[in-house]
């Protein structure tokens, strides 16, 4: 039973650490499918986490925090959109700039407002998204297998976890079953085709980056007011980049994106779990190596194990009407 419990805990942890990756990954999916590369996911998530925690601390409401996280992340997304859609700037440069702005300003503002070394005050009660128990979870707890799966793994997460996983089928549906999705995919492949079909390339791409902002905002709020109880500097710790790797790994498709994020989440969870553990033959593995494992695996996977990942063809290229 100890093994099953350990496994259940590992899976539970995997789900929790996968959620911000998944939200950020889906966020990136909307933007990149529209042809706007976004390496600023990290920055938007970080800014969202800070804004969410600050607003929740001041207002005492997790929902106000979530709203503020989304608002700020959307603002940054619009900056990226303004630079790369309206002004046809370099999307990588703009994304990097947003990452720097977020990394710097969250610490400065945090220190100025709360004077806790860049942290926000610890959150508790209604200022956080608490774990919710799904109906029937308690009743089913003692049923073998089902009880474990339903009560331990499925139930008992914060609402944002469910939101994140529901976003997967929703995104798939939007992308492949709606007019908006058709146009979004088209504009990332050949904006000239969209333009000549009488559709505004600019407005379409703006809608995509706004969606990116919303989802990175939710991802940030999850980090600071659901998974943790407050903002800590640099708390995204590269998750925005891992999410991008997952997006490439998933070839810009929503369902594979979920599995990619779960895989990276699992590696992360496992690295925490196996820290300091002595392995047969190799003995104790240094903590640093374990921590680096997800990144090493990312490189290996992306380097050769997923076949050719073809990004949206118009990705990264500003649309200029041809003469």
């Amino acid at each position, binding site marked *: 039973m100890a093994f099953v419990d350990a496994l259940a805990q590992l899976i539970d942890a995997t789900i929790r650490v996968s959620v911000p990756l998944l939200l950020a990954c889906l966020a990136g999916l909307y933007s990149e499918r529209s042809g706007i590369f976004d390496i600023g996911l990290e920055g938007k998530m970080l800014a969202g986490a800070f804004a969410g925690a600050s607003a929740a601390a001041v207002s005492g409401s997790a929902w106000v925090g979530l709203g503020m996280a989304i608002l700020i992340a959307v603002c940054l997304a619009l900056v990226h959109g303004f630079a790369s859609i309206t002004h046809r700037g370099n999307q990588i440069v703009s994304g990097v700039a947003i990452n720097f702005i977020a990394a710097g300003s969250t610490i400065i503002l945090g220190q100025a407002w709360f004077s806790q070394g860049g942290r926000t005050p610890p959150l508790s009660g209604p200022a956080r998204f608490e774990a919710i128990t799904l109906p029937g979870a308690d009743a089913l707890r003692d049923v073998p297998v089902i009880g474990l799966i339903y009560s331990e793994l499925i139930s008992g997460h914060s609402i944002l976890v469910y939101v994140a996983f529901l976003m997967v089928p929703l995104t798939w549906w939007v992308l492949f079953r709606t*007019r908006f*999705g058709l146009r979004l995919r088209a504009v990332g*492949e050949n904006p*000239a085709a*969209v*333009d*000549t079909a009488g559709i505004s390339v600019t407005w379409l791409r703006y809608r995509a980056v706004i969606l990116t902002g919303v989802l990175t905002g939710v991802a940030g709020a999850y980090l600071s007011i659901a998974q943790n109880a407050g903002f800590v500097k640099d708390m995204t710790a590269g998750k925005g980049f891992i999410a991008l790797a997952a997006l490439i790994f998933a070839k810009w498709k929503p369902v594979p994106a979920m599995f990619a994020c779960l895989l990276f989440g699992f590696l992360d969870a496992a690295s925490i779990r196996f820290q300091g553990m002595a392995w047969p033959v190799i003995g104790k593995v240094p903590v640093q190596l374990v921590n680096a494992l997800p990144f090493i695996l990312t490189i290996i996977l992306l380097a050769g194990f997923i076949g050719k990942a073809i990004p949206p063809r118009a990705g990264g290229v500003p649309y200029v009407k041809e003469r």
Partner: protein
Amino acid sequence: MAEAAIQLIGINKSFGPVRANRDINLEVERGTIHGIIGENGAGKSTLMSILYGFYQADSGEVRVGGKPIAINTPNDAIAVGIGMVHQHFMLVENFTVIENVILGAEGEALLKSSISKARSELQRLEREYGLEVDPDAVIEELPVGLQQRVEILKALYRGADILILDEPTGVLTPAEADHLFRILKMLKDQGKTVVLITHKLREIMAITDTVSVMRQGTMVATRKTSETTVEELAELMVGRRVLLRVEKGEPRPADVKLSVSNLTVRDSRGVVMVDDVSLDVHAGEIVGIAGVAGNGQSELLEAIAGTRNAEAGTVMLDGRPVDVTGHVDPGELRDRGLAHVPEDRHHVGLVLAFEEAENSILGYHDKPQYLRGPFLNIEAIHADARDKIAKYDIRPASDRLKTANFSGGNQQKIVLAREMEQDPTVLLVGQPTRGVDVGAIEFIHKRLIAMRDAGKAVLLVSVELDEIRSLSDRILVMFAGRIVGERGPDASEGELGLLMAGVEQREAAE
């Protein structure tokens, strides 16, 4: 006179200092095929883009069906029944046919019903116009001719009564082009109006009812096609009399300058593209290689030029061997007097982002006349470029302009000037007039004859049979990687056509 489908009155459009359209008047009769012909850069595409709402005219009026109308976006054009098939297809390559057809005309927010509606509509269009295409095929897996059909379907699906086609045959094989013309005739019979933009005279004569000629942004003439001739149209296009067939004297072949023996070349997939080919080119003659594209001519040329390795065989350049199967350095061949005008000027012949002057020395940039110590001698390079511009009539005459901003014909002249002015012994020329307008073709042909008369050995590869016949002193026909026949310049088109199709393969092989 029948009703006018489109009237353009006093259209003006400038891009910065360039006046692309000046005071254009045009009337297109309903239910006809109206050709608009002109050299590259004459303003045909600009005019049609204005009609389609892609650009806005600076001044002037557009009337559709007699009513003045403002077309500010493609949507406005679609709304009054104008559809356009662009020169570069506006298709999403990894979408299916049906997805491309409905894009922008979905009707409602969910795709399911729009797709089923489009499916039945496509079946109707297929019945009425013979526009057959599998609605679930992915665009990038379709041949170009079918992709173009999807573009036509897109326009018809949006209810187009007036169809504009911009250089539709540039990417098509002759058979596909014939099929397109049949479709256009069928559209005309059903009462649609077709506007065909092209710079190919033959197409105009073959299919249009009326033809308008544009030159340097102005509309110079409109004629009934049945009442005009190719010669008259060519003259109107260029503004002076054009020789459609070059005049040349008798060749005076001398020593063999290029000798190819038993050359075999495989492509990257390992397929034999050139199969045991032998040929000689003498000083003072043009040897033309005819053939349908893809029969190994390109690979043959590249192997001789040293840009592709051969598997077997020998090449002698001016009496000395070239290591074609081992390490060949194209730069070294250049030093030994081999000049190469590659088939693909955009990707091989030029760096489009470079200035004209930079391209005019590319590959010869380490010649002493362009250097000052270890540095480029910028003044000498620019002076040299200006000389070439004057000598080859390259327009606009600017050695600082980005090469991408020159028309196809002028880009080709830049390459030709660079290669010919190095005074080579052997000149390899691939598709010298592909995408080049009539006036420039005449110039290029004259230059090639001049090279021959100056005692150079010229090897010409072209898929244009007319070009091969009018320039070559000897014609070699390639089919499936082999030379299947040699003919004189007076060989008939039919005879060469049979050889190119692989008939009589045994006979006359060297």
